[in-house]
């Protein structure tokens, strides 16, 4: 069978296609169809010739197979140092082979590549820091994912996820109306406790445009409410856009570059339309990578930057605490030992290590670093899409062991994880290993300890 009804080379462009995929429990038929999906080797080779640029070619060529990347990879480590988990091997045996064979690979090979690209690499980019040449296997796996996606070899959940972005401009089925209604709802809920609090939608020339992760609107709207409350306390002039509020990108995890561009352009259009001074991104790692770090290139922006200055939530919090916009009640600082999960996507890959430490210096009395930490921290175990893929759940659970051991070694029972993916992974590791830890975003913590100015308190 050249193309399946569900598993094929076509992106999801209609609601019917999306519904059909969703109806296929666990992707049973989807993966069955994948077993006989033809590889369009000519198209694959043409695509490589067009998109495989000198950097990737050089990286593939100059790798000396020295193996120094091996110990940098947490998946290599948790899987008993299996040689097949050495980053260099993983990329050479997949992308390297495809290039070497000029795209002439078969179905079985592509399925092996899929498994490697989505269950043996979370694109955390840690290996690049340890390679003497600076070869970044994570970046190359991102590229490989794009090739695999274009041939239809992508995990079921990510085909759905990128389809959601194409249809809804959000990773979940949340429309612009749903989002605006959710903002109204959260403002209603908060009005009694916070007189005067509003969630301004589409306000022009605000100081801040705030963008989120669709899961917040869909399942955890109190996150929006908490953000609104903190902006309110800090006295910020802010807004959310009715369109372009979603900054995550499951299409990035999927390797669906066209959907990546479509999604990020929606956010940039909101910036152009509302002309805010800057954008604040919610507590999400990959959303920051998608919209701030990589997005400008997908959208072809020559500056390599989003249309307005864009900062991560930790940058806003650090600034608000530094300048006194938010003040912490010293009596309410976190007394117990607490540790911090460095999200690869905005710590290692966007340099915000010190920002996070600055926040902790204001809010925690006994902050304990994981080892290693900061730029050298390990992935939570669920990055790059790993968390959501049922087919690789077993491998993902194994991957959590590294983070579990790192957290346990700190002696802390509380983990601050300002990233949706990390938050999920840490929740899952508690579910899986029952080690007795708690995990949290920054917003609820801050709300517990911030000093509320008298004029913002409700009259009793």
């Amino acid at each position: 069978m050249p193309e399946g009804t569900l598993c094929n080379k076509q992106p999801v462009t209609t609601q019917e296609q999306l519904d059909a995929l969703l109806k296929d429990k666990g992707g049973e038929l989807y993966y069955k169809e994948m077993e006989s999906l033809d590889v369009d080797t000519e198209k694959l080779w043409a695509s490589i010739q067009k998109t495989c640029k000198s950097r990737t070619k050089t990286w593939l060529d100059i790798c000396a197979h020295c193996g120094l990347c091996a110990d940098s990879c947490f998946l290599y480590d948790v899987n008993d140092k299996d040689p097949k988990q050495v980053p260099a091997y993983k990329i050479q045996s997949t992308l390297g082979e495809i290039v070497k064979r000029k795209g002439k690979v078969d179905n079985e090979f592509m399925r092996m590549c899929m498994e490697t690209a989505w269950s043996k690499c979370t694109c955390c980019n840690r290996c690049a820091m340890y390679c003497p040449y600076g070869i970044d296997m994570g970046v190359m796996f991102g590229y490989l994912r794009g090739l695999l996606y274009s041939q239809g070899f992508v995990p079921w959940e990510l085909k759905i996820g990128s389809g959601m972005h194409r249809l809804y401009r959000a990773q979940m089925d949340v429309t612009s109306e749903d989002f605006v209604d959710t903002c109204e709802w959260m403002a209603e809920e908060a009005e009694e406790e916070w007189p005067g609090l509003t969630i301004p939608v589409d306000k022009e020339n605000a100081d801040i445009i705030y963008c989120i992760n669709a899961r917040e609107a869909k399942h955890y709207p109190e996150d929006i409410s908490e953000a609104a409350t903190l902006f309110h306390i800090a006295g910020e002039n802010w807004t959310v856009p009715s369109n372009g509020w979603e900054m995550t990108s499951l299409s990035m995890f999927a390797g669906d570059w066209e959907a990546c561009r479509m999604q990020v352009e929606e956010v940039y259009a909101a910036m152009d339309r509302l002309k805010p001074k800057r954008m604040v991104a919610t507590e999400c790692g990959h959303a920051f990578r998608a919209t701030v770090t990589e997005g400008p290139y997908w959208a072809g922006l020559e500056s390599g930057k989003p249309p307005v200055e864009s900062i991560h939530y930790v940058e806003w919090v650090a600034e608000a605490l530094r300048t006194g916009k938010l003040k912490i009640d010293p009596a309410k600082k976190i007394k117990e030992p607490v540790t911090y999960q460095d999200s690869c996507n905005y710590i290692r890959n966007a340099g915000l290590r010190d920002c996070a430490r600055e926040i902790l210096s204001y809010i925690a009395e006994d902050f304990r670093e994981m080892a290693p930490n900061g730029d050298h921290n390990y992935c939570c175990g669920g990055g790059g899409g790993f968390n959501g893929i049922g087919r690789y759940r077993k491998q993902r659970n194994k991957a959590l062991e590294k983070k579990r051991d790192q957290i346990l070694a700190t002696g802390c029972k509380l983990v601050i994880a300002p990233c949706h993916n990390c938050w999920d992974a840490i929740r899952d590791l508690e579910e899986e290993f029952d080690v007795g830890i708690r995990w949290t975003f920054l917003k609820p913590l801050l709300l517990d300890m911030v000093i509320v100015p008298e004029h913002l308190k409700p009259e009793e």
Partner: protein
Amino acid sequence: MFTKVLFATSASPCCDAAARVAFDMAERYSAELVTFHVLGVPSRGYSQTVTDVRTGDQVEADEDYNQWVMEELKITYEKQLADCPECELATGTGVPYREVLRKAREIDADLIVMGASTTACEIPESHRRGVAGSTLQAVAKSSRCPVLVVNRPSASYWGGFSNVVFATDFSKASDSAFQFALKTAKEMGCTLNLFHAVDITGVHAGKSPDQDAIEDQVMAARKKIREKYVWQMDGFKEYDIDVWEGIPYVEIVKFAREKQADLIIMAHHTHEIDAEKAAFGSTLEQVLLRATCPVASVNRPDKI
């Protein structure tokens, strides 16, 4: 008195007492009743997989699964549905308290009926922590309409009313609870017992207030009830005022028992919804776990 009732259920036996009241009320007031069950909580990151709240299994929350759960709901409430054919059944996926609040807002409910805690009722007695469920805590905190909690089977009778107990701590939220209590007493034609418990739990911390001080506080509270509430009753004469001293939740439960109350109405205004921290904090939560009648939690004036 009620036109749209949302019965939020975990569809477990823990909600049977609440079910009885919900269906009873719908019939009595010819109210529209929506029986709502959140079937799964999001798990596995961004995927569509949810953890079924009843079985604990990870499932794809698609249309088929939804249909299956709907059938289960129909079987669970078969008897009640036979008497209440217009009752709508609905399911949702998400974090339960959030989805209950979403549904209440969507249908513009004027009352939410719930059990106290499914987790607490399904773990062995010896291991119970005596805390209200996290879903209830969070719903009661944010709901715009009164939340009627029916925990013990003995509380599941919503019939001829003779006594309503309004327990106040004089807070702003208690003002809303009072309005609801007054309205209920008037419409049901029953006695409204205005009650306050002077908190002397400081005794356990080694502080031993002298009896004169306690009695002064009791007197002051009686005066406060008169000043704060009685003038608002617009000629309604069927009321009593009582102030007792002790541990507030114990006194409220004792008082309700003595009065053979059919309903306790209180405010739930704790801002803490973290189950760990609020476990022993809220008087309301202790009352509704112990009371032999339904307890209505009222926070806001909107839907009264």
